[in-house]
């Protein structure tokens, strides 16, 4: 099973890298859905030796909520808004891919000096989760579209989720479900806000809308 966990962890980071090179927002949402799906699988792989109902429920909950429902809401949000692709990121696509690679290296370097209690199943979970957090953070701060920024936040959260999986063998189910609910609410609110932004300032990317506000009001 360790091989499968390794492969999933690397695949999760690979998908985050893929998001850095994707122009279309629809493509980014699809990649995020795939990433969440793999995250749900990691949970099953981790407890493969004695699979309990709780693990299956949380795994299915992750897949259903992050892999289906959240992407659906995001699709719904951009359907009414004329946001199709990322226009002008703060740093270019090429630069962000290279710095993404450097961030991954940084994540591995940092996790060398992180001493965690207990022995993780795979030594790749910790660096990969850190890398996902860093990549999500970079997407969040360098992209100018509201939806892409939210996706960056969601990817960051995926990284934290992976980190939590590696840390706690017995995490209370209520906490995990609570986190999932939080994300759901956050995305829901964001979708409504994106729609409202569009009604107020047509087609304006998030960074422009701020300066426009001064002129309008």
């Amino acid at each position, binding site marked *: 099973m360790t*091989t499968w966990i390794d492969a999933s962890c690397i695949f999760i980071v690979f998908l985050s890298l893929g998001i850095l090179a994707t122009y279309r927002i629809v493509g980014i949402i699809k990649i995020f859905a795939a990433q969440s799906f793999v995250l749900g699988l990691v949970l099953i792989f981790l407890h493969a030796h004695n699979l309990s109902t709780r693990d299956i429920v949380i795994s299915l909950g992750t897949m259903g909520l992050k892999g289906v429902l959240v992407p659906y809401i995001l699709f719904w949000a951009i359907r009414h808004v004329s946001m199709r692709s990322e226009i002008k990121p703060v740093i270019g696509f090429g630069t962000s891919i290279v710095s993404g690679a450097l961030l991954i290296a940084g994540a591995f370097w940092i996790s060398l000096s992180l001493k965690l209690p207990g022995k993780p199943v795979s030594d790749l979970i910790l660096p990969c989760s850190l890398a996902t957090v860093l990549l999500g953070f970079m997407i969040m701060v360098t992209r100018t579209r509201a939806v892409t920024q939210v996706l960056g936040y969601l990817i960051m959260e995926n990284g934290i989720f992976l980190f939590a999986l590696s840390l706690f063998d017995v995490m209370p189910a209520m906490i995990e479900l609570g986190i999932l609910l939080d994300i759901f609410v956050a995305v829901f609110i964001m979708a409504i806000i994106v729609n409202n932004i569009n009604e107020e300032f047509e087609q304006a990317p998030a960074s422009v809308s701020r300066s426009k506000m001064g002129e309008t009001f």
Partner: protein
Amino acid sequence: MIMILSILCHWLIVLLLAPFFIGVIAKVKAFFSGKVGPSVFQPFFDLIKLFNKGAVYSKTTTWIFRAAPMVLLASVLILSLEIPLGVFKAPVQFSGDIFFLAYLLALARFFMIAAALDTGFSMEGMGASREAFFSCLSELALFMNFITLALLAHSLSLSHMIGADIPMSWSHVGPALLLIVASFFIVLLTENYRIPIDDPDTHLELTMIHEVMVLDHSGVDLAYVSYASAIKFLIFSGILVPIIIPFRTGDLVMDMLIFLGGMLGLAVCVGIVESSMARLRLNRVRNFLLIAFALAFFGFIVTMWRG
């Protein structure tokens, strides 16, 4: 004497096999577009036809233009000696021959770019500029892959890197090797001017890379260029296939069949990629190649991590 004989045998196999895989790719593409397509041996007939023709040279060109196809073919033929073909060991192997490989590729590329500029045709100049830029980025990924393989094999010789130690590595750093395979596949597509980097069938000068550079070559020169492209494909898949299929049965016939099957499978894969994907917009090719580099770098980090 045995050395010379083995080199000649190796060349014979390479020369016979190389155009065949190009034919396979064309056949797969024809199949996906619902046609019967030319026979898999069509590249041989094309080459024979071209070899029987004379060449036409523009008055503005100099000796560089005439030398370039010969330099290209000569360098890929020398390169092919470093590649083990199934049970046939590479006749030439020494420590550090990966650098020899990379620099011979660069030499051939330099001459092709110089020849394209030599014609004074603006389109060929554009093609040359793109070629220089993209190959620069793909070389980055290529070297990153080689560094990782060298780390795994503790050797700088290509035959060792894609030979003995890979099977053990798959159980230890399998996911990292997957990254290497993905990254090397992108390098293979780039170096052989395949979709999504470049469309080998297109004849629209604005978007062409390799084809536009060889527009002025004719007859025997064109035969040299297309033969060299076919051999280059064989070289790159000859490196990739032993990484993907690491095991050896010990039986000579069986090993050779597995290797040939792998090569055939790779050619079919390239054909499927070509039929199912569109060519990338030129300014996005750079990102695609940087992704190849990022994958190779990631693979390198995971390999270092696992030690």
